[in-house]
């Protein structure tokens, strides 16, 4: 290992990763950020809608603009950002191996922040491997980054915020959303997001699920059916919906592969996406390794950013770069912004889940 050691390596250039990089670099930490994508910003660069929150959370600003602002700030503070760079391994002594094209490099860092985000959940039903069945995030990448619509008639599965937002954006991109369904009897996401597509007369099939993707070689329709109290479809009451694309927006799971390889303890929290690396109040998962954002529990871009900042400050603190007057205060500041984000009908539960998790200590 003849590579020089850097202070902080951040894996993932989404809001969490950039937040950590900025806060650490601001205080004099030498930071390198790697991300596998050609563009930094993580999920933000696909998000053309305006965000919720308050002014301090950049509410009312569109996701991709927030991404650009973060990137600008990161550059200002001298953060180095390597794109098209995949971190493929995490070995002893904080050695992370990354690759660019077909060249692989090892990097040793004093501290590492894992901000690797999440992966989308899928469903398995008859015909689900046909072309035309995809996750909502994939559809969002197609319309907002590649600028092509995946199809003309879309059936959306899942009424969480992702399902609602992506439905709306698919319509903005010119497609028709022939329906949105959810096994639950109520809409999962924010009402205001739901109303955006209600106003466009998109039918909601609540208490329904998709039974089969129909079509010989590609999707030409879906058979959907109401579910019983055990969420099993009542197939006899099923009916046909014509569509050429079925989008699955059925939740996200923390992308914990690198964290597990690093040796982070894992824990389980259904409200935050299932299995995830455990972390303490300052986002530390184990010695020298921090987690932040969706990988530390599925939430939102705004919370990811704040968690990233928390991790960045904690790294600066451990490296002895936190100014005296900031000690203690800065954590409280960030925590109070986080608490504000984790309030209300949905947020309260997540706040409690985070508290429980931290209190529980690492269980596995």
């Amino acid at each position, binding site marked *: 290992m003849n590579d020089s050691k850097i202070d902080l390596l951040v894996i993932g250039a989404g809001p969490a990763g950039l937040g950590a990089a900025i806060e650490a670099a601001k205080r004099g930490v030498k930071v390198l950020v790697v991300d596998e994508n050609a563009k930094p910003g993580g999920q933000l660069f696909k998000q053309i809608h305006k965000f919720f929150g308050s002014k301090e959370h950049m509410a009312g600003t569109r996701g991709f603009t927030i991404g650009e602002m973060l990137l600008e700030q990161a550059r200002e503070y001298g953060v180095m950002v390597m794109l098209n760079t995949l971190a*493929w391994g995490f070995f002893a002594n904080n050695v992370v191996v990354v690759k660019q094209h*077909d060249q692989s490099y090892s990097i040793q860092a004093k501290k590492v922040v894992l901000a690797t985000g999440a992966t989308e959940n899928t469903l398995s039903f008859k015909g689900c491997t046909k072309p035309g069945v995809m996750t909502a995030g994939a559809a969002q990448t197609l319309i907002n980054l590649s600028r092509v619509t995946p199809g003309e008639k879309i059936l959306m599965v899942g009424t969480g915020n992702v399902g609602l937002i992506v439905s709306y954006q698919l319509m903005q991109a010119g497609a028709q959303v022939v329906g949105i369904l959810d096994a639950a009897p109520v809409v999962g996401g924010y009402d205001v997001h739901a109303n955006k597509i209600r106003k466009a007369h998109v039918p909601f099939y609540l208490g329904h699920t998709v039974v089969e993707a129909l079509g010989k070689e590609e999707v030409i329709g879906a058979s959907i059916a109401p579910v019983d109290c055990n969420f099993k479809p009542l197939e006899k009451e099923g009916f046909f919906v014509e569509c050429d694309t079925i989008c699955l927006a059925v939740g996200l799971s923390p992308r914990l592969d690198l964290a597990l390889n690093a040796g982070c303890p894992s824990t389980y929290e259904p409200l935050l996406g299932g299995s995830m690396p455990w972390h303490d109040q300052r986002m530390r998962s184990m010695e020298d390794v921090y987690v932040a954002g969706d990988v530390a529990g599925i939430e939102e871009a705004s919370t990811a950013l704040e968690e990233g900042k928390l991790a960045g400050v904690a790294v600066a603190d451990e490296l002895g770069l936190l100014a005296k007057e900031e000690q203690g205060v800065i954590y409280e500041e960030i925590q109070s912004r986080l608490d504000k984000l984790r309030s209300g009908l949905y947020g309260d539960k997540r706040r409690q889940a985070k508290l429980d998790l931290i209190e529980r200590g690492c269980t596995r």
Partner: protein
Amino acid sequence: MIANKLIADIHCIEPIPCNPCETSCPFGAITIGSDITNLPVVHEDLCRGCGICLAVCPGLAIRLLQMDNGNNRAIVAFPYEYHPLPQKGDLVTVVNMEGLPLGQGTVTRLQKPIKNDPTQLVFVEVDPSIAQEVRSMERLKDNDLEEELIICRCEEVTRKEILNAIQKGDHSLDAVKRRTRAGMGLCQGKSCSKLVSRMICEQTNITPDQLAPASKRQPVNPISLKTMASTSDKPLFRDLDALARELDNEVK
């Protein structure tokens, strides 16, 4: 009608040109006569309930009926030409002429009355109050089709294979992975691991919080061996300033 023995009961209501029921009955219990469009008549005293006419009738218009089997239960038999077949002892939903459910019945017997002919008769014990109306049963769901569903796309592992593994005692993500390769493919379990955990929990009394995530191996994403081998003696940067300059150039 004779209540305590199985007798053919024909629901043939149109004068169509057809008479195999008459010619097939080994006991001469059905009469149509010289005009082939006559409606069939069953001679209850001659009928022995052998079921041959049920399997022969191209219209599936004949059933066997016994209103009282001695235990205050009725027996109905009807031809059934779908897959999968019910098994003896199964509870099935019996239906009327419109296919509407009448209630439940227990399958007491399966029979193929004609050699080399696949038509099966299903004998169902039902409550006498509904027996007169029973014409068939609700089609059974094809579990095979369901079990052919692919759960792990990368390694094309089906629901059936995973169910088998769980039945054999693989009660963790790693155990299922070792036996079936589910989760070993290109995406390294990113799309299937939640589906597999759900199946393990459904089939056992394990709860999701008790299931550890599958162990993750490096490289966490697929890379070529050549790339991996290129790692050791290639320093990424001599010093940070050089790297910063390089990245700066890239941006410009």
